[in-house]
C-alpha cells in the first residue's frame, strides 16, 4: 500500500496519544484516607477479566480511530503493488511500453487488447501518483519521450501498437542511459509487457550487464512489471514464406508460399484473402493441424503488374489482429554480380567458379575478376559480393569497398601473400602458418550465418576440410569456424551490418581443400551472394524495425495501417515504396511463437533489484491503484462507535436507598 500524502504518516506516533493520556491519568492519582475499605476490597477482588479486556479494547479502539484518521488523510492507495514506493518521493517515472504485435492480442476482457488495457490501467493508476517527470520508452524506437502526464498515453504516437518486436533489454538500456544522463533522485520504471520470450531475450548476456548497471547506479530504481501473460485463445496467424515471379508458357505468374498457424488444432477451411494489384481474391485453405503450409500457390499476373508489385494476405479477425495480415512485394530477381579482386587470377579460379554457377536456373550470376589497380573501373553499384584476395584496401579503394558494405552487400577477404600493414573493420592479417598434414576445423557456427546447417538440418562438411596453410586473423572478431590450432578459419567483423568476413586460407590446393571439397566453399559463396543480392533487390521483405531510420525517411506508403505516421513507417506492417524499390514490412517470425518467460526466470532477471510484478487477473478491477481513504474513514468511524459502546457506563447499581434526612428501617 502506498500513500499520496506520505508526509502525513509522520503523524502516526499520535496514535500513541490515548495510551499516553491513559498513563498520565494513571500518574495523576490522588491519595485519600478511606474508611469503607471493606467494599473497596470486595470490588477489587471481584472478577476483573472483562473490565481489563474492556479497558484495553477501549484503548485499542481509540488508537485505531486515530490511526484510521491519519491513514485516511494520507490518502492511501490500494493495489497489487504492495511494495510500491512512496509516490511523493518519485522524481522520474519511466514507462516501458511493449507495443509489439503480440500486445494486440485481446486480453481477458473482450474487445480490449493487452496494449489498450495496459494504457488504460497506467493512465488510471499513475495519475494518482505524483512524479516530477514522466518518460515513455516504446519498444519500437527505444527512445525516451518526456510527456506531461500519463493521461496523454492514449494519444501518444509511440504508445500506439506497431509490428516491431520489443527489445526489453534494449528499452532498459535506454532507460538506464536516460537516468545516467539526467540523474534523477528517485526513479520508478514501469514495464508493461506480455512476457514473450523473443521480446525479453532472457538468455541474453545484456541482462547481467543491465542488472549490474542498475545496482551500481547512485540512486535506487524500483521496477514494476505489469504482466499480461495469457490472453484470449483461438488465435490464428499467417506468414508468407516466399513470393516470386516466374515465366510460364501462359505468361508471367506469381508464386506465393505461406503458413497458417493456429493455437488449437482445428479442422476447418480458412478463407485467406489475397489483395494484389487492387484486386481481391480468396484462397480457401484446409487447416488440419496447428500449422498448415501452402507452397507455390500460383497467381497469374496480368496488365501492369507483370513485373513488380505488392500484395497482402489476410485471414479473418481473431484473438490477435496483428498477425492476421502479411504484406509482400515482388520484383524480378536482382542480378547476382560478384567482383573478385586479386593479384593473381589463377588463385581465385575456384572462387570464380563458386560464384558463377547459380543454384537456380532463373537466376543469372556474373563474375568479374580485377586486380586491385583495376578495381576502380568496376561497376561498384551492382556488386552484391566482393571477394578480396589482395592486400587490404588502401585509402583510395576503401570508399569503394565501404559503399558495397553500406549498401548491404557482402565482402569476404582472403589472405594475401604479404602485406601485414593495414586493417579493415578492425581486423588485420597476421602470420602464415603451415602444416603439411593439414589443420582440421574443430568448431563452427551451425545455427546461423554462412556456415549454418542446410534446410534439412544437416551440417556442412566443414570438419572434412584440410587446411595446410592459413593466416591468422587479428582483431575483435566473431569467429564462425575455428581450427584445431586455436586460430580462426572464418571470422566476421563486428559491425552493425554484419557483412564483412575474413577467411584465413585460400581456395587453392596448396592452401586448403576448399576448392577440392567444394561444398563448403560453394555454400559460403552462394549464401553470401544471395544475401548481398538482397541489398540490390528492388523488392525487399523486411522485418519491422530492422530498417535504418534514415533509409526509411523517403518511403511512401502503398498500403499499411492508416494510423501509422510517415516517420514510423518502418515499424508498421505495410507495403512501401522508395524510388524504384518496394518494401514489405512485417512482424518478425518470432512473434508467431507465443512462448512466455516463466516467472522464476523473470524474477531472476531482476535479482537484487527492487522488483514487483503484478499479473492481470480475470475479473480484476481495471485500476491498478485506487484511493481507499474512505475505507479508513469508515474503519475510524467503526472504531469510534465501538469505543463509544464500550465506554458507555454500565447501568449503575442504584445507590443505597438512604433518605437524605432520615431513613427508618425498622418499625417499632
Amino acid at each position, binding site marked *: 500500500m502506498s500513500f499520496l500524502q506520505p508526509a502525513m504518516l509522520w503523524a502516526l506516533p499520535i496514535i500513541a496519544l490515548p495510551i499516553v493520556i491513559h498513563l498520565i491519568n494513571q500518574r495523576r*492519582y490522588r491519595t485519600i*484516607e478511606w474508611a469503607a*475499605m471493606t*467494599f473497596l476490597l*470486595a470490588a477489587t477482588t471481584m472478577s476483573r477479566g472483562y473490565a481489563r479486556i474492556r479497558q484495553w479494547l477501549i484503548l485499542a479502539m481509540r488508537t485505531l480511530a486515530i490511526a484510521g484518521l491519519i491513514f485516511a488523510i494520507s490518502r492511501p492507495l490500494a493495489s497489487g503493488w504492495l511494495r510500491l514506493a512512496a509516490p511523493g518521493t518519485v522524481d522520474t517515472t519511466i514507462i516501458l511500453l511493449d507495443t509489439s504485435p503480440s500486445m494486440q492480442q485481446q486480453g481477458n476482457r473482450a474487445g480490449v487488447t493487452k496494449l489498450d488495457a495496459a494504457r488504460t490501467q497506467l493512465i488510471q493508476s499513475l495519475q494518482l501518483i505524483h512524479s516530477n517527470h514522466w518518460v515513455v520508452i516504446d519498444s519500437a524506437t527505444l527512445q525516451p519521450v518526456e510527456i506531461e502526464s500519463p493521461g496523454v498515453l492514449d494519444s501518444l504516437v509511440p504508445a500506439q501498437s506497431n509490428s516491431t518486436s520489443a527489445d526489453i533489454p534494449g528499452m532498459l538500456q535506454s532507460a538506464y542511459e536516460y537516468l545516467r544522463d539526467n540523474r534523477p533522485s528517485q526513479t520508478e520504471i514501469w514495464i508493461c509487457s506480455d512476457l514473450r520470450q523473443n521480446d525479453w531475450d532472457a538468455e541474453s548476456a545484456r541482462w547481467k550487464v543491465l542488472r549490474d548497471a542498475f545496482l551500481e547506479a547512485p540512486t535506487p530504481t524500483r521496477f514494476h512489471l505489469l504482466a499480461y501473460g495469457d490472453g484470449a485463445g483461438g488465435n490464428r496467424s499467417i506468414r508468407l514464406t516466399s513470393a516470386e515471379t516466374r515465366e510460364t508458357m501462359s505468361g508471367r505468374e506469381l508464386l506465393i508460399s505461406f503458413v497458417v498457424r493456429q493455437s488449437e488444432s482445428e479442422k476447418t477451411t480458412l478463407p485467406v484473402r489475397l489483395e494484389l494489384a487492387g484486386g481481391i481474391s480468396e484462397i480457401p485453405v484446409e487447416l488440419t493441424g496447428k500449422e498448415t503450409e501452402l507452397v507455390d500457390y500460383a497467381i497469374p499476373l496480368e496488365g501492369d503488374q507483370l513485373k513488380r508489385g505488392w500484395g497482402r494476405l489476410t485471414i479473418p479477425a481473431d484473438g490477435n489482429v496483428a498477425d492476421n495480415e502479411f504484406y509482400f512485394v515482388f520484383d524480378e530477381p536482382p542480378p547476382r554480380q560478384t567482383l573478385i579482386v586479386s593479384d593473381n587470377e589463377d588463385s581465385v579460379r575456384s572462387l570464380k567458379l563458386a560464384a558463377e554457377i547459380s543454384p537456380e536456373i532463373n537466376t543469372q550470376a556474373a563474375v568479374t575478376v580485377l586486380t586491385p589497380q583495376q578495381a576502380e573501373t568496376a561497376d561498384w553499384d551492382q556488386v552484391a559480393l566482393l571477394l578480396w584476395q589482395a592486400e587490404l584496401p588502401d585509402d583510395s579503394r576503401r570508399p569503394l569497398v565501404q559503399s558495397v558494405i553500406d549498401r548491404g552487400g557482402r565482402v569476404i577477404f582472403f589472405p594475401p601473400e604479404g602485406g601485414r600493414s593495414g586493417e579493415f573493420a578492425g581486423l588485420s592479417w597476421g602470420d602464415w602458418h603451415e602444416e603439411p598434414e593439414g589443420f582440421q576445423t574443430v568448431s563452427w557456427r551451425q545455427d546461423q550465418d554462412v556456415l549454418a546447417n542446410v534446410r534439412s538440418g544437416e551440417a556442412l562438411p566443414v570438419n572434412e576440410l584440410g587446411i595446410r596453410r592459413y593466416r591468422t586473423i587479428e582483431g575483435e572478431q566473431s569467429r564462425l569456424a575455428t581450427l584445431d590450432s586455436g586460430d580462426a578459419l572464418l571470422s566476421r567483423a563486428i559491425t552493425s551490418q554484419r557483412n564483412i568476413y575474413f577467411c584465413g586460407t585460400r581456395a587453392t590446393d596448396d592452401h586448403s581443400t576448399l576448392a577440392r571439397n567444394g561444398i563448403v566453399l560453394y555454400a559460403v559463396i552462394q549464401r553470401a551472394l544471395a544475401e548481398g543480392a538482397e541489398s540490390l533487390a528492388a523488392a525487399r521483405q523486411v522485418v519491422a524495425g530492422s530498417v535504418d531510420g534514415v533509409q526509411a525517411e523517403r518511403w511512401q506508403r502503398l498500403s499499411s495501417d492508416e494510423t501509422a505516421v510517415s516517420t514510423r513507417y518502418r515499424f508498421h506492417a505495410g507495403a512501401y515504396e522508395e524510388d524504384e524499390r518496394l518494401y514489405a514490412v512485417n512482424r518478425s517470425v518470432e512473434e508467431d511463437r507465443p512462448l512466455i518467460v516463466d516467472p522464476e526466470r523473470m524474477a531472476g532477471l531482476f535479482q537484487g533489484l527492487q522488483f514487483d510484478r503484478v499479473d492481470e487477473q480475470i475479473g480484476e478491477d481495471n485500476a491498478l491503484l485506487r484511493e481507499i481513504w474512505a475505507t479508513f474513514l469508515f474503519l475510524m468511524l467503526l472504531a469510534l462507535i465501538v469505543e463509544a459502546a464500550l465506554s458507555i457506563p454500565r447501568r*449503575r*447499581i*442504584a445507590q443505597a436507598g438512604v433518605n437524605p434526612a432520615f431513613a*427508618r428501617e425498622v418499625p*417499632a
Partner: protein
Amino acid sequence: MSISGPQRSFLDPQVLSRLSSIPLFSRRAMVGNVSGIHSSPHRGSSVEFAEYRKYVPGDDLRRLDWRAYGRSDRYYVKEFEADTNLRCCLILDTSGSMNFGSTGVTRLEYARRIAGSLAHIAIRQGDAVGLTCISDKLVRTIPPRRTPSHLRGIFDILEHAEAGGDTRLVERLHELAETIPQRAMVVLISDLFVPPAELREAFDHLRFRKHDVVVFHLLDPLELSFEFQRPMRFLDMEGGTSIFAEPNEIADRYQKALQAYLEEMKAVVLGSEVDYHRIRLDSDYEQVLQNFLAMRARTKGAR
C-alpha cells in the same frame, strides 16, 4: 436547665431548645430507680389504670375498689401503671474510620452532635445517661446518672473523644450487653463497618437483655456515591493496606458490594428488632433527631 460549662462545638443551644419540646420515649418498659415518664414493667401508682385483680390478704386496703365491691359484692384491688425513668447508654464508636467525612463534618463530629443532644434531652427529662467510647477496646465509659452535673462529664468525654484504632465493635457490644443492667436504652452511633452477620449476634445479645437498642448508622455521601474523577490511592484509616484503583472502573462492583452489605444490614436489624437509622452525613442532625424523637413519641406505650 441550661448547658453549664464552656461552649461545646457539637452543641447548638437553639437546636437543643427546639428539640426539648419533644420528649424521648423508650419503645419498651424500662427499669428505673425513680419515677419518670417511661413505662415500667412493674405496677405502680400512676394515674393510668392498668387492671383489676382479686384482693388477697395483705393487700393495702386503701387500694380496694369500694365501688366495684358495691356492684359485685366482691373485693377487687385496682392497679395502676408504674412510670419510671430510663437509663440511656450512649455507645460511641471512636475507631479510626469515624474520622472520615467528605462534607466538612467527620463521622465522629456528627456522632458527637447526636450523642450530646440525646444526652441533654434525656437528662433534661430526668433520665439517667451514660456514655461509652469504644474502638478496639473500651476507650472511655461513664455510667448512667441523671444529675445535671453528670451531663458536663459526658460532654467533656464527647469533646475529647478522638477517632483511632481498629474496630472491634462486635466484641465490645457483647461486653456492654453483659455489663449494662437490663432494660436500658442502648444507643449505638457508628459506621458499622463490620460484617452484618457478626453484628446480628451482638444485637440479639442486647435484645436478650431486654434493652431498647437504637442504632444510628452514619454513612458519608462519598462512600455511598463513590464518585471520583481520577485514579485514587485509598489509605485505610484503620491501618490496613492501601489500594490503588481507577474508581470509574470499579464503581459498579463497589456499589454492588455496598448494596449487598446494606441489604444484609437491613435484614439483620429487622431480625434483631433494632431501631435502625441510616444517616447520611450531609443531612441535618436536628432533623434526624426530630424525626427520631417524633417517631418514638408515636410508638410510646409498649410494656
